[in-house]
């Protein structure tokens, strides 16, 4: 169903409660609704096939005394996306929660309870999500009146209250430094013997307020460099997503050549990310040969990136209006050479993985979540494609030069960790395919940077989607008056995927915890410690990383 039809349908069904619809481009539809119908309209859009992306909250108190809220939805098969906007007076910031129907909205709504002081009626778990446990009540840092560098005094004796453990289970807290993530994150896993019965999660301990910083301190063209540092692995994804959102809002058209260069950079990033994941996954289940070899192959890509962009990571290639460095014919030739080598060596790697029975045993039937559940939880990326959901932003919402590329989107239906592994390995070859096409078809002229006018028009809304190696990244930008975005919302692919981890863990063995979590491809860490508490005796034992890995490696085998 296309944007026009959906707009018409909503107007018919909800009458004047749908205040206005606006379609700045054929692939975007903004729907302004009364606060009272936010939930039914969102549900209707979901029922029509909209896949929930993320919610955005913003402060408009200075302008008209309200707090704004946006829910975004993607219609993947029809190549467009919708944003449902509403607002509430700051004195009465009540909204109907959509989480009971769309579980993935849970975090977004909790985020705005913390950051903007919104209240959501009917939210199933209105706990603190982002702010530290000792952050004072009633201070909402994303409100404009709060300075960006506010540091309230720390308080003792406040701790996050974990969910009640189900009857007859013991609690195993994992964290606050996580066993397989870079970021400190705290899971409490409820186990009965070795079997996982449930899980509570407390994260966001490294919440750095990047959005606030960029809304108040730096200017438009510095944000890409900050955005790039959101993720150490898929940095250019965030820079590109942000730049595209601003370009869409301001109506900047970048040259075709710049779009091709962006495509090349994004695919090189995917290559390195997937090889990195493959290595770490091998390491987690005790297959260190895969780890060493995958990282050896990856190293050539890192050197290549250094050659193209001036750095192994944080490429710094993308700015608003285009890219900073050119891909000259010599560099293109070097890329081709590296690709040939990487392709050959990845084939060897693939053969040894696909046929390895110990990998099969450790990943097949592990971390299972059905296709229906995955759709309900709005999973993205290889995690979704391993559950038979055929979505890929590159094909469904083409950006950069992907509309010129022909490639397959690998989808498997095994619904487990094995599936994510297969999808990622196959995507490596697709990425190589895309890179070759991009290098071959790249237009030889066109400016790297488009002419960007003096001031970008303020208060325009736009959002953009990019397929990161781990799934869809989404950025929402409201342009501002101070030569910087008024609101910039970042949603990394792990945001939806992590929310479904408790579901994936359900009924699995504790030893599979690292690889299940690893299968959604968050970043892995070397600083993890695990505390095991036996609920009955209260005895406490702290497991180091080595021990956790050993448990994990013994696994089922």
């Amino acid at each position, binding site marked *: 169903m296309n944007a026009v039809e959906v707009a018409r349908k909503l107007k018919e069904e909800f009458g004047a409660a749908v205040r206005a619809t606006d379609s700045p481009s054929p692939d975007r539809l903004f729907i302004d609704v009364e606060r009272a119908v936010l939930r039914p309209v969102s549900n209707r859009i979901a029922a029509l096939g909209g896949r929930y992306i993320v919610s955005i909250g913003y402060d408009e108190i200075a302008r008209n005394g309200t707090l704004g809220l946006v829910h975004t939805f993607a219609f993947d098969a029809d190549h467009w996306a919708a944003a449902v906007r509403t607002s509430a007076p700051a004195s009465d910031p009540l909204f109907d929660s959509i989480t009971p129907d769309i579980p993935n909205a849970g975090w977004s709504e909790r985020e705005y309870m913390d950051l903007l002081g919104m209240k959501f009626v009917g939210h199933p778990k209105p706990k603190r999500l982002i702010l530290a446990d000792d952050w004072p009540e009633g201070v909402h840092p994303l409100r404009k009146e709060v300075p960006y*560098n506010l540091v309230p005094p720390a308080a003792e004796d406040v701790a996050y209250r974990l969910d009640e453990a189900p009857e007859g289970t013991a609690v195993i807290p994992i964290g606050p430094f996580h066993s397989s993530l870079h970021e400190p994150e705290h899971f409490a896993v409820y186990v009965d013997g070795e079997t996982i019965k449930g899980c509570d999660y407390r994260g966001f301990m490294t919440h750095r307020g990047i959005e606030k910083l960029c809304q108040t*301190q*730096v*200017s438009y*063209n*510095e*944000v890409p*460099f*900050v955005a790039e*540092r959101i993720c150490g692995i898929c940095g250019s994804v965030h820079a590109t997503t942000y730049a595209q959102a601003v370009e869409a809002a301001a109506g900047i058209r970048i040259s075709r050549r710049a779009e091709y260069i962006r495509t090349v950079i994004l695919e090189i990033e995917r290559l390195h990310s997937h090889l990195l994941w493959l290595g770490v996954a091998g390491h987690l289940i005790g297959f260190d*040969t895969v780890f*060493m*070899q995958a990282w*050896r192959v990856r*190293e050539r890509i890192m*050197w290549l990136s*250094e*050659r193209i*962009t*001036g*750095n192994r990571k*944080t490429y*710094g290639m993308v700015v608003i209006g285009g890219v*900073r*460095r050119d891909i000259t014919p010599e560099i293109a030739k070097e890329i081709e050479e590296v690709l040939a080598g990487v392709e050959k*060596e990845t084939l*060897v*790697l693939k053969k*040894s993985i696909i046929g*390895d*029975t*110990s990998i099969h045993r450790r990943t097949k039937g592990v971390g299972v979540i059905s296709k229906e559940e995955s759709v309900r939880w709005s999973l993205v990326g290889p995690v979704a494609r391993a559950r038979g959901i055929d979505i890929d932003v590159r094909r469904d919402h083409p950006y950069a030069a992907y509309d010129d590329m022909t490639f397959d989107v690998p989808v498997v239906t095994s619904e487990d960790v094995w599936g994510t592994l297969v999808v990622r390995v196959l995507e490596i070859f697709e990425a190589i395919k895309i890179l070759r096409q991009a290098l071959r078809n790249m237009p030889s002229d066109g400016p790297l940077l488009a002419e960007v006018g003096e001031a970008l028009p303020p208060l325009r809304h736009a959002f953009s989607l990019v397929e990161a190696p781990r799934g869809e990244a989404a950025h929402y930008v409201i342009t501002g008056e*101070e*030569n*910087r975005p008024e609101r910039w919302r970042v949603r990394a692919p792990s945001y939806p995927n992590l929310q479904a981890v408790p579901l994936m863990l359900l009924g699995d063995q504790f030893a599979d915890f690292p690889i299940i979590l690893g299968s959604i491809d968050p970043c892995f860490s070397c600083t993890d410690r695990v505390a095991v508490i036996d609920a009955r005796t209260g005895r406490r034992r702290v497991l180091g990383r080595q021990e956790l890995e050993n448990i994990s490696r013994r696994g089922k085998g």
Partner: protein
Amino acid sequence: MWLTSKIKQILMVLKPGVVTLKYPFEPRPVAKDFRGQPAWDHHKCVGCGGCAAHCPARTILVRDICQELRIMIYDGARCAYCGRCADVCPEDAIVMTEQFELATGDRDDITVTMELFMLTCQRCGRCYNMETTNMIDKMELKGFRYDHLEMRAVIPKATERFDAKVLEATERYERPRT
């Protein structure tokens, strides 16, 4: 089963062999156009402050310590090596060097301070009014930060990491209004 898997693994690693580099015992040259530590050429710099205005890490400080002396401090500890400063410099006074071995226990090792003598107007005896009439200031966009001379009030917060003595000397200084 286990054995065949091991044999396969051995075959897999035999071909590439040892790939570990001898670094740091042997130097590892960086790629062409590498973005290492930025270096300033004080002969070329005109003290426009463009680099400070566009540094995403906000790690370049511009201060007029007196009427004719402009101080620029680059604090490498916060540098993200993005190369933005080199991009925007209208005089090409900044190059991104190949220097990447920058770990140090002493912050001064990676801090660069430049003193620039600014021109004085022959008629009124004051510095050129850099804020409003300088050509390069037209590059300046709204959203210029602590280094904006009109915005002194926010300087201490944003620059507390800079040398306390330098900050103190500059704080007492009142710039004449035109």
